[in-house]
């Protein structure tokens, strides 16, 4: 044992020196980023797509929303507000199920959204929480499931669970089917499998008999250019023996192909089933009902609301108490109160209703999951109100401007186009966002110099030029001209503004269109740059059994345009069918460099090209093949105009994290940000290795990344969690092996501007709203620690250049990067003791403009960094006036503390006097005399009665002095005449009181002191002023 201890100690002592061996330090993820955290600004006002709702079976306060791209959210207040509980895992959710035997603790989540539109994200398996959602663990066996539709748990035996796997949307998949476990998820058996193209679209258990199961199987497939729903393999199955055997239950259904089938059992009567069919005969589509548990079926209804887009809306929900009340998801959602014979639309809410749920005790209360969030109805579905704090908006694209604070622009799935501020008084609120486009929104770009915004809707059906100041819009999309081929625009059509010519505006169909007059006239400057593969151009028959030609599948189109920031003649183009093309002469000729893309499968979607600022021939291109079932990440770099390319992907990136975007740093060529289906990755060495950024950043699909140049903020448009920002990433530029080897390293910072904004931020009515986090306006002190500080003392303070302590800060102690905010405050004054509080005592003045030292002390070592503060350039006062304000602030600060010490002295004298009075011996009369005169003085100096609210006493000297001090210290304007006169009055009053105090000390005080001395009653113990003012 002794030997072991010795050798361990030896190791411990030699460890610090092992750094000499020069081994490369590789910090990853949380080790590297420390407490550099992302912030979320929403928006939540239009929310985002909901895939599944789940209510707690016995506690009506608790419910869950599984979202299409924003994780799982839990409400603990009956749906008033929600909080995210699945931020460590993939954000695309298929189903959330509670274990009926322990619904408080056991939560199952099947990932991968199941309403298979073109823009869906992918899932990544099955997860389970056993602690109410605080932690989730992956349940092995479903790694390749992509989409899970159902999790059914036996209410009498929670070890017995059924899982429905819909499977891959863009390829064959043998993991599809219905699975069963009898040991709580340890082992699984596939109990129903039809084929590699047919998945389980619904599995449900009879609530009254856990051995009875229904499963709908669906044959479906999507490609980049089409969708097919239905086939001979689709069918509706039933098992009465816990899944051991299955039989089709289709008596009455039309023969031939079937599409997606919805199925539901009435909780109050297990013989009643409802199903919604998609068939070859449109007259037979819609609602079917069985009153004999599936033995036979009767067709009831083929209204629009029952047949609309089955792949998107196949959910039937039956009132738990009344089998005749039936809800059906749909464009508007439908409700029947006569057992399915007739339906009416649900009340106004966001369109596209995917799931519905009744309150467990009151069927008047209905929850609805839509493309625009969760809604609540209190009157049986007639009126709906939105849940206001689900920031799960799904951006396709974002951009930023150069305003201060800058704005973020972007378009959303089914929710139009918007812009809003990156910071706003009181936080980024719903009301801060401005609508700038209808339909599905995609790219939104600000004109570089004018207050004009470009936006678009799907397929460039409309491209708007919006004059913000004059509130005027004009549609400007390129229109076919004589001799033009038919234009093919992508669903998410590319647009770009020029960094060189402010009025230049690019768009692309299969051609590149350029306008020099903000879209009024257009010129085509390229041939068809796509493969122009006719096989991928017939969208009119897309959809399968139900035609679904929304334009979402338009293919062989240009998807990305990038004009070089270094040369306006260099333009890069990427197409959805795999071409990368570049022109060096403004479009006169184009080089198809696709063949040089070694390692990229043919026809892989070119999602983004980033033309570099670090070289004219340098560009990055990212590719993603998810619409052909290839989820692998691809990102390439060229430095020679595409002649040669190098992959910058490493195994650090999750294997199914396909890439949609890349953003280079404008300063450090080796610093890159990669937007993937599974979140953000960062490299600090040009792609030699990558770190997953997970600090307050869920692994959400990142569709677009911008870097705001003035602030160095990374701004992400995510498809499920709105806009997420990482403030000022400039410290990452400095990271290299030398820095990583230092014990402590302070990062350089630009001089801190001491922002003087002082407006209002009323938040009326926002109690249940999401409010986006603001960027701190404080000075960001950023340092790197090689080790986490755990033992011994560590402090952080700001000193002036002479070493006087200005303020102490709470030091970050994390390994990696630490961010400490300093609001430029010094310390607050020590106030005279009184009965109540005064604002002055809570006011710490700001430091003047200038240089300061940040001093970090760690054990015996001390580390310093000089920082600089600057006055706000938009200040409404002159520097001379500012200096006068600072001088008066200091004078009043000192005056406040002088009074505090005077009141302290009075108190100590009174205490001694009281002691003598209480002793009832020699000197009592003198003591009483002193006490009384001092008390008369004290009650003129400070408040001695009342409270801090409506029983407050009239202000005394301390309060008047504190108020004027606070007023001068916190005002950013010059000291006004009125304030100065008030100060003079208070100064004069204080002088009088000081004289009065001196007189008392001279008369009653001296008499008392003599008595003390004469009778050996001890001296008055009094701290020095310096001692008194030291607080810690």
């Amino acid at each position, binding site marked *: 044992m002794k030997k072991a*201890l010795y050798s*361990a*100690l030896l190791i*411990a*002592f030699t460890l610090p020196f092992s750094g000499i061996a020069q081994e490369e330090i590789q910090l990853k*993820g*949380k*080790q*590297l980023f*420390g407490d550099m955290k992302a912030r979320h600004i929403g928006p939540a006002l239009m929310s985002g797509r909901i895939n599944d709702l789940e209510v707690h079976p016995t506690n009506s*306060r608790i419910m869950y929303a599984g979202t299409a791209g924003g994780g799982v959210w839990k409400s*603990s207040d009956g749906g008033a*507000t929600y*909080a995210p*509980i699945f931020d460590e895992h993939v954000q695309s959710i298929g189903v959330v199920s509670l274990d009926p035997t322990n619904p408080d*603790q056991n939560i199952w989540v099947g990932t991968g959204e199941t309403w298979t539109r073109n823009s869906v994200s992918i899932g990544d398996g099955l997860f389970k929480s056993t*602690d*109410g*959602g*605080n*932690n989730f663990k992956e349940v092995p066996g479903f790694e390749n499931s992509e989409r899970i539709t159902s999790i059914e748990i036996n209410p009498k035996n929670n070890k017995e669970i059924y899982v429905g796997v819909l499977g891959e949307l863009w390829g064959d998949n043998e993991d599809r089917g219905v699975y069963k476990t009898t040991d709580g998820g340890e082992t699984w058996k596939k109990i129903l499998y039809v084929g590699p193209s047919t998945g389980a679209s619904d599995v449900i258990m009879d609530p009254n008999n856990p051995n009875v199961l229904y499963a709908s199987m669906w044959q479906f497939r999507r490609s980049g250019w089409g969708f097919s729903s239905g086939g001979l393999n689709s069918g509706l199955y039933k098992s009465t023996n816990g899944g051991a055997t299955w039989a089709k239950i289709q008596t009455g259904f039309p023969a031939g192909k079937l599409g997606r089938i919805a199925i539901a059992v009435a909780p109050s009567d297990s013989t009643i089933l409802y199903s919604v069919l998609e068939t070859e005969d449109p007259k037979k589509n819609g609602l079917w009902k069985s009153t004999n548990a599936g033995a036979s079926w009767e067709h009831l209804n083929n209204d629009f609301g029952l047949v609309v887009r089955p792949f998107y809306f196949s959910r039937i929900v039956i009132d738990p108490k009344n089998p005749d009340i039936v809800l059906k998801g749909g464009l508007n959602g439908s409700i029947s109160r006569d057992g399915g014979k007739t339906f009416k639309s649900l009340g106004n809410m966001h369109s596209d209703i995917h799931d519905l749920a009744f309150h467990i005790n009151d069927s008047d209360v209905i929850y609805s999951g839509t493309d625009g969030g969760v809604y609540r109805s209190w009157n049986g579905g007639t009126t709906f109100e939105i849940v206001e704090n689900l920031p799960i908006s799904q951006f396709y694209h974002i951009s930023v401007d150069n305003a201060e604070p800058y704005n973020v622009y972007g378009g959303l799935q089914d929710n139009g186009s918007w812009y809003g501020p990156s910071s706003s008084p009181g936080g980024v609120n719903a009301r801060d966002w401005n609508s700038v486009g209808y339909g599905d929104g995609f790219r939104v770009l600000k004109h570089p110099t004018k207050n004009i915004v470009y936006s678009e809707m799907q397929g460039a059906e409309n491209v708007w030029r919006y004059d913000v100041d004059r509130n005027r819009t004009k549609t400007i999309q390129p229109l076919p001209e004589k001799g033009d081929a038919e234009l093919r625009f992508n669903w998410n059509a590319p647009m770009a503004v020029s960094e060189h010519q402010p009025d230049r505006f690019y768009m692309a169909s299969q051609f590149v269109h350029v306008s020099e007059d903000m879209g009024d006239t257009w010129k085509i400057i390229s041939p068809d740059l796509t493969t122009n593969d006719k096989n991928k151009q017939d969208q009119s028959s897309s959809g399968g059994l139900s035609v679904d030609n929304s334009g979402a599948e338009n293919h062989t189109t240009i998807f990305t345009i990038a004009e070089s920031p270094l040369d306006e003649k260099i333009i890069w183009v990427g197409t959805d069918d795999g071409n990368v093309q570049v022109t060096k002469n403004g479009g006169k000729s184009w080089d198809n460099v696709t063949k040089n893309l070694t390692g990229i499968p043919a026809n892989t979607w070119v999602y983004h090209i980033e033309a570099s600022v670090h070289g004219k021939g340098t560009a990055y291109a990212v590719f993603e093949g998810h619409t052909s079932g290839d989820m692998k990440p691809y990102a390439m770099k060229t430095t020679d105009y595409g002649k040669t390319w190098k992959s910058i992907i490493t195994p650090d990136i999750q294997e199914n994290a396909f890439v949609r975007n890349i953003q280079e740093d404008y300063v450090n060529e080796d610093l890159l940000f990669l937007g993937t289906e599974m979140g953000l990755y960062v490299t600090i060495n040009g792609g030699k290795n990558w770190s997953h950024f997970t600090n307050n950043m869920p692994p959400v699909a990142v569709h677009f990344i911008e870097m705001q140049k003035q602030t160095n903020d990374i701004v992400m448009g995510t498809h499920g969690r709105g806009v997420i920002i990482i403030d000022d990433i400039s410290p990452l530029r400095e990271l290299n092996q030398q820095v990583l080897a230092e014990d402590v390293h302070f990062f350089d910072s630009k001089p801190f501007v001491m922002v003087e904004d002082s407006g209002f931020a009323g938040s009326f009515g926002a109690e*249940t709203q999401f409010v986006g986090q603001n960027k701190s306006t404080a000075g960001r002190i950023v340092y790197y*620690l090689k*080790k*986490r*500080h*755990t*033992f*011994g*003392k*560590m*402090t952080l303070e700001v000193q002036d250049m002479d070493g006087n302590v200005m*303020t*102490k*800060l*709470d030091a970050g*102690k*994390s*390994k*990696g990067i630490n961010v400490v905010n300093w*609001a430029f*405050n010094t*310390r*607050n004054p020590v*106030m005279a*003791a*009184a009965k109540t*509080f*005064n604002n002055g005592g*809570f006011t*710490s003045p700001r430091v003047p403009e200038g240089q300061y030292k940040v001093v970090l002390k760690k*054990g015996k070592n001390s580390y310093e960094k000089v920082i600089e503060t600057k006055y706000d350039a938009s200040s409404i006062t002159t520097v001379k006036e500012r200096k006068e304000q600072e001088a008066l602030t200091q004078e009043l600060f000192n005056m406040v503390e002088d009074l*505090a010490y005077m*009141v302290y002295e009075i108190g100590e004298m009174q205490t001694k006097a009281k002691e003598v009075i209480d002793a009832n011996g020699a000197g009592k009369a003198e003591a009483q005399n002193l006490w009384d005169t001092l008390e008369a003085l004290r009650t003129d100096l400070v408040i001695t009665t009342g*409270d*801090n*609210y409506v*029983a407050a006493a009239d202000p005394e000297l301390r309060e008047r002095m504190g108020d004027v001090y606070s007023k001068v210290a916190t005002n950013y304007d010059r000291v006004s005449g009125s304030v100065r006169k008030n100060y003079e009055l208070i100064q004069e009053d204080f002088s009088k009181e000081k004289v009065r105090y001196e007189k008392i000390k001279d008369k009653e005080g001296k008499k008392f002191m003599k008595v003390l001395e004469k009778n050996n009653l001890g001296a008055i113990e009094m701290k020095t002023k310096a001692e008194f003012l030291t*607080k*810690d």
Partner: protein
Amino acid sequence: MKTVKTLFVALLVLAIAPMTAQTADEIINNYIENTGGAEAWNALTGVKMSGSANAQGMTIPVDIYNMKDGKTLVSIDLQGQTMTQVAFDGETMWTTNFMTMLPEKSDAETTANMKANLGNFPTPFLNYKEKGYAVEFLGKETKEGVETFKIQLTQKPIMVDGVEEPTISYFYFDTENYVPIMSESAIPSGPMKGQMASQMFSDYQEVDGLYFPFSMTMSGQGITMKEIVLNPELDMKLFAFPGEAAADKK
């Protein structure tokens, strides 16, 4: 001298940490041993911690009293007035109303919840089984940039707005030295209900043979201890609800 001792103990802590892992009990035992030993921790009857909180440029002196029997008190000093922010005498939990500056009893549910989990002194992990708590090792996780052991602590259930809920928190022990550097628990009630609130622990220093974190950060608010006194001699009246007496005095 103290620094040297701290360093030595930190290294010693390294030395006695077994190289391989790990059950929850091993982690907890290492923690208890490395910070002073079960015997010493069990002998502790109370602590008084004096320090200060930093808030928006203000330094607020804070005294925290924690007793073995669950009595607790937090008092702060604002503008020369010492006031009890929260106190519990074993029966009654109370706070000071900042408008009237008078003591007020906490609601019955809050008080009952306080009583339900009196075993937090000096750490909930000491004799956790006897206290009726359960622990579970959930695996390793990176927190504060370092590898930690994540332990789930389940204490007695509490009532939240009339409904019983479990009391679950998570502690992260640095794998290098087995001291907790962070804890997390779900906010039990209010608009933030369910969101995780975290606490960070650092600046561990020795006080008469026991190691305490002298710096704590709770939901972004830091408290730095200046002095920790073990087994302080206190008048137990300190913890009691002052009742009408306080009003009269005022």
